[in-house]
């Protein structure tokens, strides 16, 4: 069963056809996913206060109902180290189409993965796991399964990735927390079953995985029209 707060967020997002990032992050946080510390600023003062609380470096992202692909309009700035850059970024974002705020979030490092879902006409919610980042559609190193998934399915999906070795520890790099990743995949597949009447597709991209945890750094929820 979906929490009331999740339902409310989805209800208010219907007018845009998709869920704005801060709201999407809220949904995943409510459903038990690890998300970075973040808040949304409109003014300079707000921005500096939020960044102060989180602590530099931070990442800044445009919040606008008109901008689904943030990178395409340079709407994501990572590694901001001081107030000056933060303010400059906010001023630039304000000029972008449909600006409603700037999301400021803690910088999270790790191996970039994508966990996604598509509500397929014939098969219902399909879950995707792959190597994330902007190159996802170029390398297409992904695995797909029909939801809901069990841990064993998550195992198989990880095993299907060409880049599996990058997850299990390659050339002295620590392996990521596989259990956290599998839990995230299984939990995500359950959420997609709960949302199947409402949601068209979802990207968690990237999910940053480290030896400790998997954190949903960016998320996008497209609603059914």
């Amino acid at each position, binding site marked *: 069963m979906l929490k009331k707060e999740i339902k409310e967020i989805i209800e208010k997002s219907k007018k845009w056809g*998709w869920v704005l990032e801060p709201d999407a992050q809220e949904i995943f946080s409510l459903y038990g996913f690890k998300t970075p510390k973040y808040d949304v600023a409109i003014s300079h003062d707000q921005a500096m206060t939020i960044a102060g609380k989180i602590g530099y470096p931070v990442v800044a992202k445009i919040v606008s109902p008109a901008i*689904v692909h943030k990178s395409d309009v340079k709407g994501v700035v990572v590694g901001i180290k001081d107030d000056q850059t933060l303010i400059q970024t906010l001023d630039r974002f304000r000029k972008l189409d449909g600006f409603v705020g700037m999301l400021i979030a803690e910088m999270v490092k790790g191996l970039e993965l*994508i966990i*996604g*879902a*598509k509500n*397929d*006409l*014939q*098969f*219902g919610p*399909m879950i*995707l796991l*792959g190597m994330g980042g902007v190159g*996802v*559609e170029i390398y*297409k190193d*992904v*695995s*797909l*399964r*029909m939801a809901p998934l069990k841990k064993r*399915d998550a195992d198989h999906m990880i095993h299907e990735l060409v880049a599996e070795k990058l997850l299990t520890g390659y050339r002295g790099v620590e392996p990521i927390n596989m259990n956290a990743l599998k839990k995230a995949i299984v939990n995500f597949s359950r959420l997609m079953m709960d949302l199947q009447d409402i949601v*068209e*597709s*979802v*990207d968690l*991209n990237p999910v940053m995985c480290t030896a400790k945890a998997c954190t949903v750094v960016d998320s*996008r929820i*497209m609603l059914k029209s």
Partner: protein
Amino acid sequence: MDLKPLFEPKTMAVIGISSSNDRHPANVIFAKNHLRYPVEVYAVNPKGGKLHSETIYPCIADIPKKIDLAVIATRAELVPDVMADCIKASAKSAAVISGGFTEGGRGDLQDRMVSMAQEAKFPFIGPNCLGVYVPFRVDTFFLPIERMIKPDAGGVTFVSQSGGILVDHMIKFAQQGVGLAKAISIGNKAFIKEKELLAYLTKDPTTKVIAYYIEGFGVGEGRDFVLAADCSPKPVIIMKSGKTAAGNRAVSSHTASLAGDYASFAAAVAQHNIIEAANENELVSFCEVLSSYTKPIEGKIGIITGSGGHGAMAVDACSLAGLKVPELSEPTKTEVKNNLAENIRSIASLSNPADLTGSAIDEDFVACAKVMGASAEIDCVIVLLLPYIPGITLDIGVKLSSVSKQFNKPFIAYVPQVEKYTMLIEGFELNGIPVSSSIEGAVLMAKALARKKPC
């Protein structure tokens, strides 16, 4: 809902008979069943009259017997009323051959039929289909009998959304020695769909392998089907077309773009223990091998050949198919060697593939097959058999078949397929060893066994 009357009718009405045109689909269907199959066939047309010396009944209700299967081949706009007549006359099933429904902009007619059938629990197949062909039972295909190629009766049931693809595969099955249990053309699949047939066929004693040609599922129906197929005690094979249609649709998320319609299809079927055949060759090969062997393999292939080139081609194909061709251990190699004729020992290459050379005779093949049959290093043997090697006899098939049975291990043979070698090929096939006409095909068969997982 009982589908048995559809496949094993004792009485059949063909509705839409013409009294003047012998090439009318209904007339073709009447003629090919009447006095040829163990089914009593009645002709129906509202105008009545005679078809040659047979009575044409004005309505199905006028037929003196209860009808198991009504074959409806009238104009589309008449079909709903004809179906109502069938239900009223307590007919048990129907095959609607007529076209011109959803595919011709008359979805309303189809909707009427479906709601009628749902209410009366009246199973009907089609519309816009060929219906059913069951060897020695019934044949509702409107193709003149002299033009049909019929495979031997056997274990494969093929369900197809396209009648043409179905008939083509009957030809391929006949060519490749694949036995057919039922051929079912489902056309618009308005009421009886893939899933209902799966439920029936998993219990059907003549069906050992269930194969589908699918263009697409209805909304949510793919999910229901794969979930049902996951627990099928019989292997389920799917060949899909329309894999690229969604390719250029604008999509707004990475996942929607990567998880295109076909990618989702392929993932969902593979996840649920369904074997996807990429093309016709795979389909025929998979059907043949899975009707011979039911036990899955891990994929450790032993190759026995009379030619080094064939062996190398087979190894490449195995590697592409994800199958292993393990090097034989020293003791196994020695055992093979000790059992070969003396003149072969010095010239044969006894790793894997085991190349027995063009000087080998039946007994060398059998000796090598026995060692591979007994060895745990190998779980499936592919024999590349060249009938033009002078030492090979027509008995090689039955000899190798008995080795396969002795060790309960699947053997697959490649034999070039020309009429001259038919008897040699039948020596394998009639004794239960599937034969492919290409090296790649033989490897595909092994691949199917490796893909099949126990439920």
